[in-house]
Protein backbone atom coordinates (compact mmCIF):
# COMPACT_ATOMS: atom_id res chain seq x y z
CA UNK A 1 0.00 0.00 0.00
CA UNK A 2 1.51 3.33 -1.03
CA UNK A 3 2.03 6.10 1.50
CA UNK A 4 -0.54 8.19 -0.27
CA UNK A 5 -3.19 5.51 -0.10
CA UNK A 6 -2.36 5.06 3.58
CA UNK A 7 -2.93 8.71 4.26
CA UNK A 8 -6.23 8.68 2.39
CA UNK A 9 -7.38 5.50 4.11
CA UNK A 10 -6.65 7.01 7.46
CA UNK A 11 -8.77 9.99 6.90
CA UNK A 12 -11.92 7.97 6.53
CA UNK A 13 -12.71 7.46 10.20
CA UNK A 14 -12.43 11.20 10.76
CA UNK A 15 -14.97 11.90 8.07
CA UNK A 16 -17.51 9.99 10.13
CA UNK A 17 -17.54 12.76 12.72
CA UNK A 18 -19.80 15.49 11.49
CA UNK A 19 -18.92 17.90 14.25
CA UNK A 20 -15.62 18.29 16.05
CA UNK A 21 -15.53 19.59 19.58
CA UNK A 22 -12.45 21.82 20.11
CA UNK A 23 -10.64 20.75 23.27
CA UNK A 24 -9.51 24.28 24.01
CA UNK A 25 -12.25 26.75 23.16
CA UNK A 26 -15.05 24.14 23.24
CA UNK A 27 -16.60 25.39 20.02
CA UNK A 28 -18.21 22.91 17.67
CA UNK A 29 -16.66 22.96 14.23
CA UNK A 30 -18.04 21.27 11.16
CA UNK A 31 -15.87 18.17 10.59
CA UNK A 32 -14.97 18.95 7.04
CA UNK A 33 -13.90 22.47 7.92
CA UNK A 34 -11.84 21.12 10.83
CA UNK A 35 -10.02 18.73 8.52
CA UNK A 36 -9.57 21.28 5.80
CA UNK A 37 -7.96 23.44 8.43
CA UNK A 38 -5.51 20.60 9.21
CA UNK A 39 -7.11 19.75 12.57
CA UNK A 40 -6.48 23.29 13.74
CA UNK A 41 -9.39 25.08 15.36
CA UNK A 42 -10.45 27.96 13.09
CA UNK A 43 -11.76 29.70 16.15
CA UNK A 44 -8.87 29.60 18.67
CA UNK A 45 -5.93 28.21 16.64
CA UNK A 46 -5.72 25.12 18.86
CA UNK A 47 -3.45 22.66 17.09
CA UNK A 48 -5.02 19.25 17.60
CA UNK A 49 -3.17 15.98 17.07
CA UNK A 50 -2.80 14.64 13.55
CA UNK A 51 -1.56 11.22 12.57
CA UNK A 52 1.90 10.56 11.18
CA UNK A 53 0.48 9.86 7.76
CA UNK A 54 -1.51 13.04 7.75
CA UNK A 55 1.64 14.94 8.62
CA UNK A 56 3.55 13.23 5.86
CA UNK A 57 0.86 14.17 3.39
CA UNK A 58 0.96 17.73 4.64
CA UNK A 59 4.72 18.20 4.51
CA UNK A 60 6.27 16.06 1.84
CA UNK A 61 6.24 16.51 -1.89
CA UNK A 62 3.58 14.30 -3.44
CA UNK A 63 4.86 10.77 -3.91
CA UNK A 64 8.31 11.56 -2.56
CA UNK A 65 8.02 9.84 0.80
CA UNK A 66 9.48 6.35 1.09
CA UNK A 67 8.89 4.47 4.27
CA UNK A 68 11.83 2.64 5.85
CA UNK A 69 12.08 0.10 8.66
CA UNK A 70 8.30 -0.36 8.62
CA UNK A 71 8.43 -3.93 9.83
CA UNK A 72 9.83 -3.03 13.22
CA UNK A 73 7.27 -3.49 15.95
CA UNK A 74 7.25 -3.89 19.75
CA UNK A 75 7.69 -7.12 21.66
CA UNK A 76 6.72 -7.73 25.25
CA UNK A 77 10.18 -8.80 26.35
CA UNK A 78 9.55 -8.35 30.09
CA UNK A 79 6.16 -10.14 30.07
CA UNK A 80 4.79 -6.98 31.55
CA UNK A 81 1.33 -7.18 33.06
CA UNK A 82 -0.48 -4.53 35.07
CA UNK A 83 -4.02 -4.39 36.42
CA UNK A 84 -5.45 -3.69 33.00
CA UNK A 85 -3.75 -6.60 31.31
CA UNK A 86 -0.63 -7.51 29.45
CA UNK A 87 1.61 -5.30 27.35
CA UNK A 88 1.35 -7.96 24.65
CA UNK A 89 -2.39 -7.39 24.34
CA UNK A 90 -1.91 -3.64 24.35
CA UNK A 91 0.50 -3.87 21.45
CA UNK A 92 -2.05 -5.83 19.43
CA UNK A 93 -4.85 -3.45 20.29
CA UNK A 94 -2.77 -0.41 19.39
CA UNK A 95 -1.63 -1.89 16.11
CA UNK A 96 -5.20 -2.58 15.19
CA UNK A 97 -6.49 0.78 16.33
CA UNK A 98 -3.82 2.83 14.55
CA UNK A 99 -2.99 0.70 11.55
CA UNK A 100 0.71 1.25 12.24
CA UNK A 101 3.09 -1.05 14.02
CA UNK A 102 5.17 1.31 16.20
CA UNK A 103 4.83 4.79 17.64
CA UNK A 104 6.90 6.29 14.84
CA UNK A 105 6.98 6.20 11.05
CA UNK A 106 10.45 6.52 9.52
CA UNK A 107 11.59 7.13 6.01
CA UNK A 108 12.98 9.65 3.59
CA UNK A 109 11.34 12.14 1.33
CA UNK A 110 11.41 15.59 -0.20
CA UNK A 111 10.18 18.85 1.25
CA UNK A 112 9.85 21.32 -1.63
CA UNK A 113 12.65 19.49 -3.33
CA UNK A 114 14.96 19.14 -0.33
CA UNK A 115 15.80 15.54 0.46
CA UNK A 116 15.65 14.59 4.13
CA UNK A 117 15.57 11.56 6.37
CA UNK A 118 12.74 11.72 8.82
CA UNK A 119 10.91 10.15 11.75
CA UNK A 120 7.33 11.12 12.55
CA UNK A 121 5.95 10.00 15.89
CA UNK A 122 2.32 9.07 16.22
CA UNK A 123 0.59 9.80 19.47
CA UNK A 124 -2.16 7.27 18.73
CA UNK A 125 0.22 4.35 19.19
CA UNK A 126 0.62 3.81 22.95
CA UNK A 127 0.67 7.56 23.50
CA UNK A 128 3.65 7.95 21.22
CA UNK A 129 5.73 6.30 23.90
CA UNK A 130 9.42 5.56 23.35
CA UNK A 131 9.76 1.79 23.17
CA UNK A 132 12.61 -0.33 21.85
CA UNK A 133 11.04 -0.42 18.42
CA UNK A 134 10.62 3.36 18.43
CA UNK A 135 14.24 3.84 19.44
CA UNK A 136 15.46 1.41 16.83
CA UNK A 137 13.54 3.15 14.06
CA UNK A 138 14.68 6.63 15.14
CA UNK A 139 18.29 5.45 15.28
CA UNK A 140 18.06 3.64 11.95
CA UNK A 141 16.65 6.74 10.29
CA UNK A 142 19.48 8.77 11.84
CA UNK A 143 21.95 6.26 10.44
CA UNK A 144 20.29 6.60 7.05
CA UNK A 145 20.75 10.37 7.29
CA UNK A 146 24.35 9.79 8.32
CA UNK A 147 25.10 7.40 5.47
CA UNK A 148 23.52 9.58 2.79
CA UNK A 149 24.45 12.96 4.26
CA UNK A 150 20.82 14.05 4.52
CA UNK A 151 19.40 16.49 7.05
CA UNK A 152 17.37 14.61 9.63
CA UNK A 153 14.01 15.87 10.84
CA UNK A 154 12.24 14.23 13.75
CA UNK A 155 8.67 15.12 14.63
CA UNK A 156 8.01 14.20 18.24
CA UNK A 157 4.68 13.62 19.93
CA UNK A 158 5.07 11.44 22.94
CA UNK A 159 4.16 10.86 26.53
CA UNK A 160 7.74 9.76 27.22
CA UNK A 161 9.43 6.45 27.86
CA UNK A 162 7.34 3.29 27.55
CA UNK A 163 7.09 1.92 31.09
CA UNK A 164 6.09 -1.53 29.92
CA UNK A 165 9.59 -2.06 28.56
CA UNK A 166 11.32 -1.00 31.76
CA UNK A 167 14.94 0.10 31.48
CA UNK A 168 15.02 -1.12 27.87
CA UNK A 169 12.83 1.89 27.17
CA UNK A 170 15.01 4.25 29.22
CA UNK A 171 18.03 3.16 27.22
CA UNK A 172 16.32 4.23 23.99
CA UNK A 173 17.09 7.79 25.12
CA UNK A 174 20.80 7.00 24.95
CA UNK A 175 20.40 4.94 21.80
CA UNK A 176 18.63 7.64 19.83
CA UNK A 177 20.99 10.34 21.12
CA UNK A 178 23.96 8.24 20.02
CA UNK A 179 22.54 8.61 16.52
CA UNK A 180 22.21 12.35 16.95
CA UNK A 181 25.77 12.53 18.29
CA UNK A 182 27.09 10.95 15.10
CA UNK A 183 25.17 13.47 13.00
CA UNK A 184 26.63 16.28 15.10
CA UNK A 185 30.12 15.00 14.52
CA UNK A 186 29.58 14.87 10.78
CA UNK A 187 27.94 18.33 10.79
CA UNK A 188 24.67 17.00 9.42
CA UNK A 189 21.74 19.15 10.52
CA UNK A 190 19.28 17.63 12.94
CA UNK A 191 15.97 19.45 13.13
CA UNK A 192 13.58 18.62 15.93
CA UNK A 193 9.91 19.50 15.68
CA UNK A 194 8.28 19.17 19.10
CA UNK A 195 4.54 18.64 18.78
CA UNK A 196 1.75 18.47 21.30
CA UNK A 197 2.59 16.76 23.61
CA UNK A 198 6.31 16.01 23.92
CA UNK A 199 7.20 15.03 27.46
CA UNK A 200 9.41 12.94 29.71
CA UNK A 201 12.18 10.85 28.23
CA UNK A 202 11.55 12.02 24.67
CA UNK A 203 11.98 15.68 25.63
CA UNK A 204 15.04 14.70 27.67
CA UNK A 205 16.70 13.06 24.69
CA UNK A 206 16.61 13.62 20.93
CA UNK A 207 13.62 15.97 20.88
CA UNK A 208 15.55 18.67 22.75
CA UNK A 209 18.77 18.20 20.77
CA UNK A 210 17.78 19.79 17.48
CA UNK A 211 20.18 22.20 15.84
CA UNK A 212 16.85 23.88 15.45
CA UNK A 213 14.01 23.13 17.84
CA UNK A 214 10.69 24.06 16.28
CA UNK A 215 7.20 23.74 17.66
CA UNK A 216 3.54 24.39 16.91
CA UNK A 217 1.48 26.96 18.84
CA UNK A 218 0.41 25.83 22.27
CA UNK A 219 2.22 22.50 22.19
CA UNK A 220 2.91 21.10 25.66
CA UNK A 221 6.62 20.31 26.05
CA UNK A 222 8.11 19.30 29.36
CA UNK A 223 10.19 16.89 31.34
CA UNK A 224 8.48 16.26 34.67
CA UNK A 225 4.71 16.09 34.77
CA UNK A 226 2.73 19.12 35.86
CA UNK A 227 1.20 17.30 38.81
CA UNK A 228 4.51 15.95 40.07
CA UNK A 229 6.03 19.44 40.00
CA UNK A 230 3.03 20.95 41.78
CA UNK A 231 3.37 18.29 44.47
CA UNK A 232 7.10 18.98 44.79
CA UNK A 233 6.87 22.74 45.11
CA UNK A 234 3.48 22.87 46.78
CA UNK A 235 2.23 25.57 44.43
CA UNK A 236 0.06 25.81 41.37
CA UNK A 237 2.02 26.33 38.17
CA UNK A 238 1.41 29.21 35.75
CA UNK A 239 -1.12 28.43 33.00
CA UNK A 240 1.37 28.70 30.17
CA UNK A 241 3.93 26.48 31.95
CA UNK A 242 5.47 23.94 29.57
CA UNK A 243 3.85 25.44 26.48
CA UNK A 244 5.89 26.05 23.35
CA UNK A 245 5.56 29.79 23.99
CA UNK A 246 6.96 29.36 27.50
CA UNK A 247 9.89 27.32 26.23
CA UNK A 248 10.64 29.91 23.55
CA UNK A 249 10.85 32.56 26.23
CA UNK A 250 13.15 30.37 28.29
CA UNK A 251 15.51 29.74 25.42
CA UNK A 252 14.72 26.18 24.32
CA UNK A 253 12.72 26.68 21.13
CA UNK A 254 13.92 28.52 18.03
CA UNK A 255 10.52 29.27 16.63
CA UNK A 256 6.85 28.41 16.79
CA UNK A 257 5.35 27.73 13.41
CA UNK A 258 1.69 27.44 12.41
CA UNK A 259 0.87 24.01 11.04
CA UNK A 260 -0.13 25.46 7.68
CA UNK A 261 3.25 27.22 7.38
CA UNK A 262 5.42 24.30 8.51
CA UNK A 263 6.21 22.96 5.05
CA UNK A 264 7.39 26.34 3.77
CA UNK A 265 9.27 27.02 6.97
CA UNK A 266 11.16 23.74 6.88
CA UNK A 267 12.01 24.16 3.22
CA UNK A 268 13.31 27.64 3.92
CA UNK A 269 15.50 26.40 6.77
CA UNK A 270 16.76 23.51 4.64
CA UNK A 271 17.74 25.98 1.92
CA UNK A 272 20.35 27.35 4.33
CA UNK A 273 22.21 24.07 4.61
CA UNK A 274 25.31 24.63 2.56
CA UNK A 275 27.34 21.43 2.28
Amino acid at each position, binding site marked *: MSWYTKAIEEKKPHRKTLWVHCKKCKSHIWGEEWEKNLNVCPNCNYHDTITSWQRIELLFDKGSFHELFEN*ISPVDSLNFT*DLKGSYKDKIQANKKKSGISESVITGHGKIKGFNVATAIMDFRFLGGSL*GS*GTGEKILQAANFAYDYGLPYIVFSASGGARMQ*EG*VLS*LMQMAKTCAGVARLNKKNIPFISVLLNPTTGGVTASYAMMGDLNISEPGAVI*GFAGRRVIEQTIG*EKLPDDFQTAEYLLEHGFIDSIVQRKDMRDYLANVLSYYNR
Partner: protein
Amino acid sequence: MVVATGVKVIEKAKKQKLSHNSKTSKVSAWETVKISRHPQRPILQDYIQKVFTNFVELHGDRAFGDDTAIIGGFAQIGNQKVMLIGHNKGKNTTEHIERNFGMAKPEGYRKALRLMKLAQRFNLPIVTIIDTPGAFPGLEAEERGQAESIARNITEMANIEVPIISLVIGEGGSGGALGIGVGDRILMLSNAIYSVISPEGCASILWRDAKYAPDAAEALKITAQALLENNIIDEIIKEPAGGAHTDYEQMASEVNKVLLRNLKSLSNYSVAELLDMRFEKYSAMGKFAE
Protein backbone atom coordinates in the same frame (compact mmCIF):
# COMPACT_ATOMS: atom_id res chain seq x y z
CA MET B 1 14.00 6.98 63.09
CA VAL B 2 14.55 6.66 59.38
CA VAL B 3 17.47 4.41 60.12
CA ALA B 4 15.42 2.13 62.33
CA THR B 5 12.79 1.68 59.65
CA GLY B 6 15.46 0.84 57.16
CA VAL B 7 17.01 -1.76 59.40
CA LYS B 8 13.63 -3.30 60.02
CA VAL B 9 13.16 -3.60 56.28
CA ILE B 10 16.37 -5.54 55.99
CA GLU B 11 15.41 -7.91 58.77
CA LYS B 12 12.13 -8.48 57.07
CA ALA B 13 13.90 -8.97 53.77
CA LYS B 14 16.16 -11.61 55.27
CA LYS B 15 13.22 -13.49 56.70
CA GLN B 16 11.38 -13.44 53.42
CA LYS B 17 14.35 -14.62 51.46
CA LEU B 18 13.10 -18.12 50.91
CA SER B 19 9.38 -17.51 50.97
CA HIS B 20 8.97 -14.89 48.27
CA ASN B 21 11.27 -15.89 45.51
CA SER B 22 12.22 -19.33 46.53
CA LYS B 23 13.48 -20.81 43.33
CA THR B 24 16.39 -18.35 43.06
CA SER B 25 16.60 -17.78 46.83
CA LYS B 26 16.85 -14.05 46.10
CA VAL B 27 15.02 -11.18 47.72
CA SER B 28 12.07 -9.77 45.80
CA ALA B 29 12.43 -6.73 43.58
CA TRP B 30 10.62 -4.60 46.11
CA GLU B 31 12.92 -5.73 48.89
CA THR B 32 15.85 -4.83 46.68
CA VAL B 33 14.30 -1.38 46.25
CA LYS B 34 14.28 -1.02 50.01
CA ILE B 35 17.87 -2.14 50.38
CA SER B 36 18.94 0.23 47.60
CA ARG B 37 17.36 3.07 49.57
CA HIS B 38 18.62 1.92 52.96
CA PRO B 39 19.54 4.97 55.03
CA GLN B 40 22.85 3.44 56.02
CA ARG B 41 23.75 2.30 52.57
CA PRO B 42 27.16 3.68 51.57
CA ILE B 43 26.86 6.75 49.35
CA LEU B 44 29.33 8.50 47.02
CA GLN B 45 31.01 10.27 49.95
CA ASP B 46 31.87 6.88 51.44
CA TYR B 47 33.37 5.57 48.23
CA ILE B 48 35.38 8.78 47.81
CA GLN B 49 36.89 8.04 51.20
CA LYS B 50 37.33 4.31 50.93
CA VAL B 51 37.92 3.56 47.25
CA PHE B 52 39.59 6.72 46.00
CA THR B 53 42.47 8.87 47.16
CA ASN B 54 43.60 12.41 46.57
CA PHE B 55 40.15 13.73 45.58
CA VAL B 56 40.21 17.30 44.23
CA GLU B 57 36.64 18.52 44.09
CA LEU B 58 35.83 20.90 41.25
CA HIS B 59 32.82 23.15 41.26
CA GLY B 60 30.37 24.85 38.99
CA ASP B 61 28.77 24.74 35.59
CA ARG B 62 30.33 28.09 34.51
CA ALA B 63 26.93 29.51 33.74
CA PHE B 64 24.56 29.47 36.66
CA GLY B 65 25.56 27.66 39.80
CA ASP B 66 27.15 24.80 41.64
CA ASP B 67 24.72 21.96 42.22
CA THR B 68 25.76 20.02 45.30
CA ALA B 69 23.55 17.05 44.37
CA ILE B 70 26.31 16.13 41.93
CA ILE B 71 29.93 16.00 43.07
CA GLY B 72 32.87 15.85 40.72
CA GLY B 73 36.61 16.15 40.60
CA PHE B 74 39.95 14.52 40.04
CA ALA B 75 40.50 11.33 41.99
CA GLN B 76 42.86 8.42 42.13
CA ILE B 77 42.08 4.74 42.41
CA GLY B 78 45.18 2.67 42.97
CA ASN B 79 47.66 4.26 40.61
CA GLN B 80 44.99 5.17 38.11
CA LYS B 81 43.95 8.81 37.91
CA VAL B 82 40.36 9.48 36.88
CA MET B 83 37.63 12.08 36.74
CA LEU B 84 35.05 11.06 39.30
CA ILE B 85 31.48 12.34 38.98
CA GLY B 86 28.45 11.21 40.90
CA HIS B 87 25.21 11.91 42.70
CA ASN B 88 25.50 12.51 46.38
CA LYS B 89 22.43 12.02 48.55
CA GLY B 90 24.00 13.04 51.82
CA LYS B 91 24.20 10.94 54.97
CA ASN B 92 21.73 12.59 57.33
CA THR B 93 18.76 14.91 57.23
CA THR B 94 20.88 18.05 57.09
CA GLU B 95 22.94 16.66 54.27
CA HIS B 96 19.90 15.23 52.49
CA ILE B 97 18.43 18.71 52.30
CA GLU B 98 21.75 20.32 51.40
CA ARG B 99 22.26 17.77 48.64
CA ASN B 100 18.59 17.77 47.60
CA PHE B 101 18.51 13.98 48.19
CA GLY B 102 20.81 13.51 45.22
CA MET B 103 18.24 14.99 42.84
CA ALA B 104 20.22 17.16 40.46
CA LYS B 105 19.14 20.28 38.61
CA PRO B 106 20.25 21.40 35.14
CA GLU B 107 23.34 23.09 36.59
CA GLY B 108 24.32 19.74 38.10
CA TYR B 109 24.16 17.96 34.77
CA ARG B 110 25.98 20.86 33.12
CA LYS B 111 28.73 20.71 35.73
CA ALA B 112 29.02 17.00 35.06
CA LEU B 113 29.39 17.61 31.33
CA ARG B 114 31.97 20.32 31.91
CA LEU B 115 34.02 17.93 34.00
CA MET B 116 33.73 15.20 31.40
CA LYS B 117 35.16 17.58 28.82
CA LEU B 118 37.87 18.51 31.29
CA ALA B 119 38.63 14.80 31.64
CA GLN B 120 38.95 14.67 27.88
CA ARG B 121 41.41 17.56 27.95
CA PHE B 122 43.47 15.92 30.68
CA ASN B 123 43.09 12.50 29.03
CA LEU B 124 41.61 10.87 32.12
CA PRO B 125 39.05 8.08 32.11
CA ILE B 126 35.73 8.98 33.69
CA VAL B 127 34.01 7.10 36.49
CA THR B 128 30.42 8.10 37.20
CA ILE B 129 28.59 6.97 40.31
CA ILE B 130 24.81 6.83 40.06
CA ASP B 131 22.59 7.18 43.11
CA THR B 132 19.50 9.31 42.64
CA PRO B 133 15.74 8.97 42.92
CA GLY B 134 15.66 11.03 39.72
CA ALA B 135 16.29 14.50 38.34
CA PHE B 136 14.69 17.19 40.50
CA PRO B 137 11.09 17.83 39.37
CA GLY B 138 10.93 21.52 40.31
CA LEU B 139 9.63 24.60 38.56
CA GLU B 140 13.01 26.30 38.23
CA ALA B 141 14.75 23.11 37.16
CA GLU B 142 12.19 22.78 34.40
CA GLU B 143 12.62 26.45 33.43
CA ARG B 144 16.39 26.17 33.21
CA GLY B 145 16.21 23.09 31.05
CA GLN B 146 16.15 19.88 33.04
CA ALA B 147 15.25 18.08 29.81
CA GLU B 148 17.86 19.93 27.74
CA SER B 149 20.67 19.30 30.19
CA ILE B 150 19.99 15.55 30.40
CA ALA B 151 19.52 15.29 26.64
CA ARG B 152 22.78 17.12 26.01
CA ASN B 153 24.74 14.94 28.42
CA ILE B 154 23.38 11.73 26.93
CA THR B 155 24.25 12.98 23.46
CA GLU B 156 27.68 14.36 24.20
CA MET B 157 28.72 11.37 26.31
CA ALA B 158 28.45 9.36 23.09
CA ASN B 159 31.34 11.45 21.73
CA ILE B 160 33.55 11.87 24.82
CA GLU B 161 36.98 10.63 23.81
CA VAL B 162 38.02 8.88 27.02
CA PRO B 163 36.70 5.66 28.61
CA ILE B 164 33.58 6.05 30.73
CA ILE B 165 32.54 3.62 33.44
CA SER B 166 29.21 4.06 35.20
CA LEU B 167 28.45 2.36 38.47
CA VAL B 168 25.00 2.30 40.03
CA ILE B 169 25.52 2.12 43.79
CA GLY B 170 21.96 2.68 44.98
CA GLU B 171 19.03 4.09 43.08
CA GLY B 172 19.29 4.52 39.33
CA GLY B 173 16.35 6.83 38.91
CA SER B 174 15.37 7.18 35.28
CA GLY B 175 16.64 10.13 33.19
CA GLY B 176 18.26 11.61 36.27
CA ALA B 177 20.53 8.56 36.40
CA LEU B 178 21.08 8.26 32.67
CA GLY B 179 22.16 11.93 32.54
CA ILE B 180 25.55 10.82 33.86
CA GLY B 181 25.13 7.16 32.95
CA VAL B 182 26.14 6.67 29.32
CA GLY B 183 29.38 4.75 29.17
CA ASP B 184 31.53 1.92 27.96
CA ARG B 185 30.81 -0.21 31.01
CA ILE B 186 27.69 -0.07 33.12
CA LEU B 187 28.16 -1.75 36.48
CA MET B 188 25.74 -2.26 39.35
CA LEU B 189 25.99 -3.28 42.95
CA SER B 190 23.95 -6.42 43.50
CA ASN B 191 21.25 -4.65 45.51
CA ALA B 192 21.14 -1.49 43.44
CA ILE B 193 18.19 -0.77 41.18
CA TYR B 194 17.85 0.99 37.86
CA SER B 195 14.44 1.93 36.60
CA VAL B 196 12.63 3.95 33.96
CA ILE B 197 10.21 5.20 36.62
CA SER B 198 9.98 4.74 40.37
CA PRO B 199 7.89 1.68 41.29
CA GLU B 200 5.58 4.00 43.20
CA GLY B 201 5.15 6.25 40.17
CA CYS B 202 4.56 3.34 37.86
CA ALA B 203 2.03 1.77 40.25
CA SER B 204 0.06 4.97 40.59
CA ILE B 205 -0.18 5.26 36.81
CA LEU B 206 -0.67 1.67 35.68
CA TRP B 207 -2.23 0.24 38.84
CA ARG B 208 -3.94 3.52 39.77
CA ASP B 209 -2.58 3.21 43.30
CA ALA B 210 0.98 3.64 44.64
CA LYS B 211 0.45 0.78 47.07
CA TYR B 212 1.01 -1.60 44.17
CA ALA B 213 4.64 -0.45 44.05
CA PRO B 214 5.91 -3.97 44.88
CA ASP B 215 4.04 -5.34 41.86
CA ALA B 216 5.36 -2.55 39.67
CA ALA B 217 8.89 -3.15 40.97
CA GLU B 218 8.60 -6.77 39.98
CA ALA B 219 7.13 -6.01 36.56
CA LEU B 220 9.67 -3.29 35.70
CA LYS B 221 12.65 -5.69 36.02
CA ILE B 222 14.81 -3.22 37.87
CA THR B 223 17.23 -5.48 39.70
CA ALA B 224 20.85 -5.88 38.70
CA GLN B 225 20.25 -9.51 37.81
CA ALA B 226 17.31 -8.71 35.53
CA LEU B 227 19.24 -5.89 33.87
CA LEU B 228 22.24 -8.12 33.27
CA GLU B 229 19.95 -10.65 31.64
CA ASN B 230 18.50 -7.94 29.41
CA ASN B 231 21.99 -6.81 28.36
CA ILE B 232 21.52 -3.38 29.87
CA ILE B 233 24.44 -3.66 32.28
CA ASP B 234 27.79 -5.35 31.92
CA GLU B 235 28.62 -6.60 35.37
CA ILE B 236 27.28 -6.97 38.90
CA ILE B 237 29.46 -6.18 41.89
CA LYS B 238 28.48 -8.51 44.68
CA GLU B 239 27.54 -6.90 47.95
CA PRO B 240 28.35 -8.37 51.36
CA ALA B 241 25.62 -10.68 52.64
CA GLY B 242 22.87 -8.49 54.09
CA GLY B 243 23.71 -5.54 51.86
CA ALA B 244 26.46 -2.98 51.27
CA HIS B 245 25.66 -1.16 54.51
CA THR B 246 26.64 -4.17 56.60
CA ASP B 247 30.29 -4.00 55.64
CA TYR B 248 31.63 -0.79 54.12
CA GLU B 249 35.18 -2.10 53.92
CA GLN B 250 34.34 -5.23 52.03
CA MET B 251 32.06 -3.31 49.70
CA ALA B 252 34.76 -0.72 49.02
CA SER B 253 37.33 -3.38 48.35
CA GLU B 254 35.05 -5.10 45.82
CA VAL B 255 34.29 -1.83 44.08
CA ASN B 256 37.97 -0.95 43.97
CA LYS B 257 38.88 -4.25 42.40
CA VAL B 258 36.16 -4.24 39.77
CA LEU B 259 36.68 -0.60 38.79
CA LEU B 260 40.41 -1.12 38.38
CA ARG B 261 39.90 -4.20 36.27
CA ASN B 262 37.46 -2.40 33.98
CA LEU B 263 39.65 0.71 33.74
CA LYS B 264 42.53 -1.50 32.75
CA SER B 265 40.60 -3.36 30.09
CA LEU B 266 39.31 -0.11 28.57
CA SER B 267 42.78 1.40 28.41
CA ASN B 268 43.65 -0.95 25.56
CA TYR B 269 41.47 0.76 22.97
CA SER B 270 42.15 3.68 20.67
CA VAL B 271 39.71 6.58 20.79
CA ALA B 272 38.15 5.48 17.51
CA GLU B 273 37.69 1.92 18.75
CA LEU B 274 36.24 3.15 22.00
CA LEU B 275 33.66 5.39 20.32
CA ASP B 276 32.72 2.70 17.81
CA MET B 277 32.24 0.18 20.60
CA ARG B 278 30.18 2.65 22.59
CA PHE B 279 27.97 3.34 19.59
CA GLU B 280 27.53 -0.38 18.94
CA LYS B 281 26.74 -0.96 22.59
CA TYR B 282 23.87 1.50 22.58
CA SER B 283 22.75 0.56 19.09
CA ALA B 284 22.13 -2.95 20.41
CA MET B 285 19.96 -1.87 23.34
CA GLY B 286 16.32 -2.86 23.27
CA LYS B 287 14.22 -5.72 22.01
CA PHE B 288 11.77 -5.50 19.13
CA ALA B 289 10.30 -7.62 16.34
CA GLU B 290 11.32 -7.20 12.72
